[in-house]
């Protein structure tokens, strides 16, 4: 199983590793987003604009999510995330995910280790590779 991503140009001119996916909205439709592949993030977190687009009702308020900039107000939502395999089929991850509620807290959705931890994550800028590998896909490291 392989999910391919890309190095995405962001607002500051920096390229960051991202994987495109969909999130199930309150009305039953799937909405497409780009997720930062953040191997340091403990969990998947949606931005405030994503939360607005999904119109999901929060289950609970969370105490906060902390990063370098301090703590951010957040809520928990129950939904599904769908990623596209190398075969073009889709794989669905059901769960409870955090979402920040302030626009300034997060400008891109973050794919955390609750999902990336199920796979081998490759974030290789010189090699121009971003992907998640699982099941019968493996990588090798070679001395050339």
């Amino acid at each position: 199983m392989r999910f391919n991503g890309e190095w995405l140009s962001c607002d500051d001119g920096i390229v960051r590793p991202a994987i495109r996916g969909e999130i199930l909205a309150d009305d039953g439709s799937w909405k497409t987003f780009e997720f930062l592949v953040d191997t340091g993030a403990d969990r998947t977190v949606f931005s405030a604009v994503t939360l607005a687009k999904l119109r999901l009702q929060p289950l609970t308020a969370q105490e906060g999510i902390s990063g370098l900039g301090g703590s951010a107000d957040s809520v928990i939502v129950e939904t599904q995330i769908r990623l596209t395999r190398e075969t073009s089929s889709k794989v669905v991850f059901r769960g409870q995910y955090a979402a920040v509620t302030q626009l300034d807290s997060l400008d891109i959705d973050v794919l955390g280790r609750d999902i990336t931890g199920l796979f081998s994550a490759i974030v290789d800028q010189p090699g121009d590779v971003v992907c998640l590998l699982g099941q019968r896909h493996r990588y090798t490291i070679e001395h050339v």
Partner: protein
Amino acid sequence: MEEVTDPEELAKARAQDERFARNSAWLQAHIPEVYSRYRGKCICIAGEELFVADTPEEVIAMAEAAHPEDDGSLIRYIPKEKMARIYAV
């Protein structure tokens, strides 16, 4: 984790992916002007057209009104300041 194999659902998803890809390509082609002019704003690209507002709700409404058929719209908040970021939330 479960795999979707329904051909009809996959075809619908592929069409949406293509619409999103077109909107994303539009943004990537206009990055300097969009990101420099609209700091602190919410942007939405739908039908390969840019919409700008102060809140996500406003910008989504504008995009949906102009392109109700486009289910591959792209929404983003552009941070007020350009600075190095550490996510790891």
